[in-house]
C-alpha cells in the first residue's frame, strides 16, 4: 500500500495504541478490561502496522517465529503461576493462600497473582492476533 496519509496516521497512532493497550492490561483489576481486551488492542496495533506498511516490514518488527514462541510462552506463564500454588503446598492456581503480597485494594499493585496472570494473558493474546493475521495473509498472497 502506498497511501501517504494512511502511513502517517498509522505511525502517529501506533504508539498511542500500544500505550493504551498496556494501560488496559495493567488496569484490568481496577476498571473494565484486562488481559484479553488489552492484548487485543496491542495485537491490533501491530496488525495495523503490518497491513499498511506491508508484510515485510511487519515481519521485520515481529518475526513470525517470535510470535509463535511468545504464544507458547504466554500460556506457559499462566500455567507456571498456577503451579506456584502446588509447590507452596496449597492448591493449583491459589492466589491469596500462597502468601503473595495482596496490596491495598484499588491500588495499581494489588490482587496478588492476578496482575501477573493478566500480563501473561495480554502478551499471549497480542501474539495470537499477530500470528493469525500472518497466517491468513500469507495464504492469501501465495
Amino acid at each position, binding site marked *: 500500500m502506498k497511501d501517504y496519509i494512511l502511513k502517517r496516521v498509522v505511525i502517529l497512532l501506533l504508539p498511542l495504541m500500544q500505550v493504551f493497550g498496556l494501560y488496559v492490561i495493567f488496569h*484490568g*483489576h*481496577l*476498571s*473494565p478490561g*484486562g488481559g484479553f481486551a488489552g492484548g487485543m488492542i496491542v495485537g491490533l496495533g501491530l496488525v495495523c502496522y503490518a497491513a499498511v506498511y506491508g508484510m515485510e516490514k511487519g515481519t521485520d518488527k515481529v518475526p513470525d517465529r517470535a510470535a*509463535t514462541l511468545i*504464544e*507458547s510462552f*504466554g*500460556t506457559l506463564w*499462566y*500455567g507456571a503461576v*498456577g503451579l506456584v500454588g502446588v509447590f507452596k503446598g496449597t492448591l*493449583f*492456581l491459589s*492466589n*491469596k493462600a500462597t502468601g503473595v503480597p*495482596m*496490596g491495598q*485494594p*484499588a491500588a495499581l499493585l*494489588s*490482587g*496478588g*497473582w*492476578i496482575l501477573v*496472570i*493478566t500480563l501473561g*494473558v495480554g502478551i*499471549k*493474546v497480542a501474539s*495470537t492476533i499477530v*500470528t*493469525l493475521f500472518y*497466517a*491468513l495473509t*500469507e*495464504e492469501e498472497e*501465495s
Partner: protein
Amino acid sequence: MVKRVLYALVVILLCYIGLVTVAEFPPYGEEGNPVHNYVSERYIGEAVEDTGVINMVTAIVLDYRAYDTLIETTVLFTATIAVLITLKTGKKNGKEEEVS
C-alpha cells in the same frame, strides 16, 4: 422453494418453543430471581476481601474461576495451532521442506 418454506417452518417452531419457555422465565431484572443467590452474594460482598481487587468480574475471571480462564487461553492456543496446521502446509513455491 419448498426447502426454504421448510427451513422457515423449523425456525418458527423454534421461536414458538423459545417464547413459551421465555414466558416461564423468572422476571427480568428483579432481585428475587434464582440467579441472585448465595453464589453472587459472596462475589459481591467478599471479592475485595478474598482477592484484593475491586473489579468483581476480574476477581471471578482470574481468581475464583481462574481454572476456566486457563482453559480459555488454551482454546485460543488450540485455535492458533489449528490455523497454522491448516494454512502452513509447507508446500510453498512447490518446494517441500526437508524432514526427519
